[in-house]
C-alpha cells in the first residue's frame, strides 16, 4: 500500500454510526415509520460486511486453492439463486441454466482477467480473484435477471405473436428470435449505459475505494477500465447463455410453446 493509506479504527466506524442516528431522528420527526427498517439495515450492514471481512481475511491468509474454489462456488450459487428469485415465471430446470451460465461466464472472464490481463501468479490469488469475481457476478446477475424477465414475460404476453410465426412454418427458434434479441439487448443496456457515463457523473465504487486506499489515480483508472470491459463481456456471455438455455425450456419437441407459462 502507498503512504496515503489511512486505516480506520473501530471508534471511527462507531462515529459514522452517528450518521445513522441522525437519519433515524429525521425519519422520526417526519413520522416515516421506517426507523425499525433503518436500524435493521444498519445492523445488517455491519454484521454482513463484518462476516465477509472475516471470511476474506481467512481465505486471503490461508491462500489455499481449494478454499478459494469453495468460496467462488458459493458466490456463484448465491448469485444464481438471487437471479432466480427475481423471476416471476420459472419453467422447470431453469435453476441449472441460470447457475450454469453464471458459472461459465464468470469463471471464464475472471480467470482470463487475473491470469492474462492482470497477470497475477497464481491466477487465483485471493485478494485479486475474489473481488473481481464478486464484481462480475454482481453485474451479470443483473444482466441475466433483466434478460430472463423480459424473455419469460414475452413468452407469456406475446404468445399470440409467437404462435402466429409458428403457424406460418417457423421453427421454435425462428418464432422466438425477435424476443431473444430484444431480451439480450435489455440485459446489456445497464452496462452499456454505465460505460457511457462512467467518470462523468460519479466515480465507480471500486475506483473510489482504490483512491481512498491511497492508490495512484492512473492505476485506479486502469483497473476501472479493465473492470468495465470485463463486466461488459461477462454480462453479455451470461445473459446470452441463459437465454439460449431458457429458450429450450419454453417449447415442446413439437415446435409449440409449452402451455401454462
Amino acid at each position, binding site marked *: 500500500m502507498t503512504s496515503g493509506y489511512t486505516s480506520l479504527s473501530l471508534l471511527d466506524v462507531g462515529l459514522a454510526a452517528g450518521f445513522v442516528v441522525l437519519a433515524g431522528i429525521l425519519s422520526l420527526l417526519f413520522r416515516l415509520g421506517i426507523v425499525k427498517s433503518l436500524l435493521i439495515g444498519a445492523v445488517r450492514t455491519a454484521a454482513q460486511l463484518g462476516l465477509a471481512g472475516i471470511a476474506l481475511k481467512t481465505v486471503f491468509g490461508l491462500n489455499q486453492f481449494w478454499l478459494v474454489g469453495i468460496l467462488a462456488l458459493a458466490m456463484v450459487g448465491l448469485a444464481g439463486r438471487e437471479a432466480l428469485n427475481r423471476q416471476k415465471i420459472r419453467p422447470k430446470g431453469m435453476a441449472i441454466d441460470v447457475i450454469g451460465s453464471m458459472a461459465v461466464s464468470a469463471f471464464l472472464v475472471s480467470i482470463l482477467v487475473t491470469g492474462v490481463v492482470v497477470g497475477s501468479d497464481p491466477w487465483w490469488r485471493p485478494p485479486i480473484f475474489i473481488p473481481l469475481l464478486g464484481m462480475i457476478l454482481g453485474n451479470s446477475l443483473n444482466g441475466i435477471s433483466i434478460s430472463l424477465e423480459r424473455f419469460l414475460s414475452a413468452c407469456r404476453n406475446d404468445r*399470440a*405473436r409467437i404462435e*402466429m*410465426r409458428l*403457424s*406460418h*412454418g417457423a*421453427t421454435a427458434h425462428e418464432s422466438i428470435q*425477435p424476443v431473444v434479441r430484444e431480451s439480450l439487448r435489455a440485459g446489456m443496456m445497464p452496462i452499456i449505459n454505465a460505460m457511457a457515463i462512467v467518470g462523468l457523473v460519479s466515480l465507480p465504487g471500486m475506483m473510489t475505494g482504490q483512491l481512498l486506499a491511497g492508490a495512484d489515480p492512473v492505476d485506479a483508472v486502469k483497473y476501472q477500465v479493465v473492470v468495465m470491459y470485463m463486466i461488459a463481456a461477462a454480462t453479455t456471455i451470461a445473459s446470452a447463455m441463459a437465454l439460449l438455455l431458457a429458450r429450450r425450456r419454453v417449447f415442446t419437441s413439437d*415446435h409449440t410453446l409449452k402451455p401454462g407459462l
Partner: protein
Amino acid sequence: MTSDPEQESCLLAVDSLLLAVEDREDRKRILTKPIDMRLSVGQIIPLVGPSGTGKSTLLRAMVRFHPIEKGRILFLGKDIHDYPPPFLRTRLGLMFQTPSFTPGTVRQTLLEPFAYRAVEQDAPDETAMVDELEQVGLPRKLIEEDIERLSGGEKQRVALARLLLLHPQVLLLDEPTANLDEESAELILNRVKDWIKHGRHAAIWISHTRSLTEQIAATPYRLEAAPKEEKADD
C-alpha cells in the same frame, strides 16, 4: 397406379380422435365424443358445436399445437406426426380469430414467413402481393402502410392474404370473421370460397352463428361434448 379415387381426393382425415385439456390440478378432461371426419378437395366444412367442446383445440391439434389423446389425424394419407411440424404448418394454414403481426408495414408482414427455412418457395414479388391484397378488397397503396394503423377488418384481410401467399393446401379458420364488420366478413368468405375453387384446396371453418354457417356450406360438422364422467360410488 391403382389408388382409390376417394382416398386421392381426401386431404385430411380424422379417425376416432379424442382431445383432452388439462385443468389446474393437472387432471385431464376429455373434450368431445370421438371425432371422425373427412375433408376432401373442394370442400369447406363449417365446424359447429357448443363452446368448450374443443373446436379450436381440434384445429390446433391438426397443426400439432395441441397433443392428441387418442386416435389419429392424416394429411394426404400420412399421419401428421410423420411431417416436421414447421412443414406441416405451411401446408395446413391456421387462421386465428384475432390476427397477430410483427410490427412493420403490410409489405413486411406479407414477406415475413418467407424467411423461414421450412417455407421452401421464393418470396412473392410485388405484383403477386398487390394482387393478393386486391383479392381481399384492399387497395394496392396499402402495402406501404404500417400494419398497426389498419382497422380490425383490414388487418384480418391482410392476415388472410399473408396465409394464401404461402400456398397452403388446407385452410383451418378459427372464427376469422367473428369480430369483423359485415363488409370485411363477406370479403373474407368470398375469397376463401374462390380459393377453394382453384387448385386442390379445402377448408374447415369454425362458426358460431347459424347464418354464417349457412353461408359457408350446406352441411356442418358438429362437435358434441363428451358424456360427463360418472361419479364413483364412495
